[in-house]
């Protein structure tokens, strides 16, 4: 096992472990913190994969923005206490079985996805320059459209959380 493989394996183990802790922690705030840790791990994996820009963006957007939003909402709703009711054991067992079987099946389906190694791959694709060229050239239209998505999401969020009493039932 080469050094790179060793590092990758350790990183992978840490990623899976922190992801598991997200699900298994009973305290919501702890879950959030573990999720942030998971994102850092995944960013490390991105760096392993020569995707430096995505790694940084992942930390900025996910860990920095989205997870802070989650944490903020948790605090706002005063849900930081460990108040979640227990799910039934039967449900837990069947969920675990389902998850395990799903993982097995997915791996079985995906493991042959690669056929050959592509030689002379460019190591610099993950750099911001390369991605910027691609994003503002080939994917400029989706990029612009995504701004509309953001606008509508923003409007939706404002509309939904307005102070007026809204009846859901």
């Amino acid at each position, binding site marked *: 096992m080469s050094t790179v493989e060793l590092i990758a394996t350790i990183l992978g183990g840490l990623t899976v472990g922190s992801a598991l802790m997200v699900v298994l922690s009973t305290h919501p705030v702890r879950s959030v913190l573990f999720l942030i840790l998971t994102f850092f791990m995944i960013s490390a994996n991105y760096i392993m994969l020569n995707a430096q820009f995505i790694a940084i963006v992942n930390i900025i957007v996910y860990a920095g923005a989205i997870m802070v939003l989650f944490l903020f909402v948790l605090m706002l709703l005063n849900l930081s206490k460990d108040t979640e009711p227990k*799910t039934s054991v039967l*449900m837990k067992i069947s969920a675990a079985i*389902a*998850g395990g079987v*799903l993982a097995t099946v997915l791996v*079985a*389906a995906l493991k042959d996805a690669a056929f050959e190694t592509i030689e002379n791959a460019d190591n610099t694709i993950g750099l911001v320059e390369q991605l910027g060229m691609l994003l503002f050239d080939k994917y400029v239209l989706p990029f612009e459209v995504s701004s509309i998505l953001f606008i509508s999401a923003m409007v939706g969020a404002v509309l939904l959380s307005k102070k007026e009493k809204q009846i859901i039932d």
Partner: protein
Amino acid sequence: MSIQQLLPLLLLFPLIGAFINGTAGKKLPKIVAGSLATLMTFVSFLIALTIFLNLDQPVRSLLFTMIDIDSLHLDAALYADNLSMWMTLIITGVGSLIHLFSMGYMSHDKGYYKFFTYLNLFIFSMLILVLGSNYFMLFFGWEGVGICSYLLIGFHYDDEQKGLLNGLAARKAFIMNRIGDLGLLIGLFLMLLSFGTLEYEQVSRMVLVDKILPNGNMLFAITICLFIGATGKSAQIPLFTWLPDAMAGPTPVSALIHAATMVTAGIFLVVRSNYLFHYAPFTREIILYIGLATSIVAAFIALRQNDIKKVLAYSTVSQLGLIFVALGLEAYTTAIFHVTTHAFFKALLFLGSGSVIHAMSGEQDIRKMGGLKDKIRITHITFLIGTLAISGFPLFSGFYSKDEILGYAFGHSLTIYILLVISVTMTAIYMFRLYFVVFHGTFRDSKDVEHHVHESPLSMTLPLMVLAVLSVIGGVLNLPGIFLHGSGTHFLNNLLNKNVAGLDQIHNVHPDHTTTLILMGVAVAICLTTLFISSIVYKKKGSVPSEDAQLSAWETFSNKKMYWDELYDILFVKPIEWFSKVFYTIVDSFILSGIIEGVVRTVAFSGDIVRKWQTGKVNSYILWMVFGIIGFITYYLIKL
């Protein structure tokens, strides 16, 4: 406009009338609704007259193609030759008069607009029946008049006392006609099978010109099936019992549908297919004897009926039987002649009876009438003319047409002639009995009713007078040769022989003049004798039909309609009821219910189980979704 263009118009007007009255009639004033319907029919009559006068060759007018597939081509087309135009004239002519009569007769009815809708619809259907260019169109019209007849017989279905009976009568007529219709339909299918077409023109050309005929059995099957259809519509044994019951409908309906027009549909069918019947002698034999039996049986039953309309109904059946005898003898033009005169005088008699009933405030029992001759003069005189015409009084229309039939019967066989004479004699007897009992003697109902007796309004008496005139002079249409030599005689004969397929190829042996004279003499003698005897019995002695309990054996037999209904009840209704009961208890309530309830229980049971899956919790739904995804992926993995 050419005849091709006029023909659809002929049909269109009654349809428009029916449409307007059927949709907006409720809001229209009565006078408008009635006049509209009458006018539409009359316009049709005028168009028919125009076409009739300008018709040299048979004309076919295509409306649209109904079915066009590999082996079958069906057109909705109209076909005018002298036969169909003659029938059209009768239908629209008599129809207009009866529409006019109805305006007065139905004036107090709340379903006024509905009545005229049905009447116009009937005229439309009947026109399709006679004007259609193929047997399929005929079938359309055939069913159309059937449904109109049903609607009109049961017109007063909501009557408090007799509503149920009216409904039952309508149902009976409908079901009995269905039996006949089935025969007709099978006949049409067989015809399609053996000729490959239902067009009159093509079938007649194949039979008459190309001499392509199906084999004897097939031809027999076709003709007998057509005849079964005819027995249903034209009320012949064994399917005749609906017609007397059909008198439950309003009287103008009885006059128009159940005497003058619809019941002649069967006769029209046979005349139209004469070339087929020509090659099926056995069927003709059957027609002859069925007609004969019907004529005698119905006349016998009519002898002791006490309902004024029932007498006329059985009289109609009897006359139709007489016409079928003519058909059996291949005297088609004579049959149409008698259809024509019969339409005149029977419509007259029915309308007259309607006028009488109107005067009697709805009473139909002749035992309660009497002495009406001075109270309702016009009705009396016209009714008398009708009676004389149907009884074959010399120089009245019935005399000529009936005499022709008797003449042909005499030429065929003496036995049939004698049996027909018996039937004709009975006709005269019951008609004079009816006339004298109703119009002579003393009034037998309560003073209250007597006080109300009044002559009908002009809209009712006018048709009576017109029909009376026609009943008198109707004989002119087909004067026998002995009266006038040369032109003017046999007008209808010549007319129908001119361009109606098949009729010109039939050469009947006409009795010679001496025989004709002798036969006429016999007929006149019979008529006068019965008139004389009846006037003594009912006028001089003033005897009144006795109550049911005092009737002698044969009178009861006649009064109870020879127990035909009871016979059918035992033969058909009871077994069917028994079968129904058996099927109900075994098949329906045991097997079918068992299966159905089993299905229900299974569904309910499985529903109970499956219901538990629907927890409403998102988690469990996702769980099942994941299982589903696993299933999918596994399936494709295995497949690969």
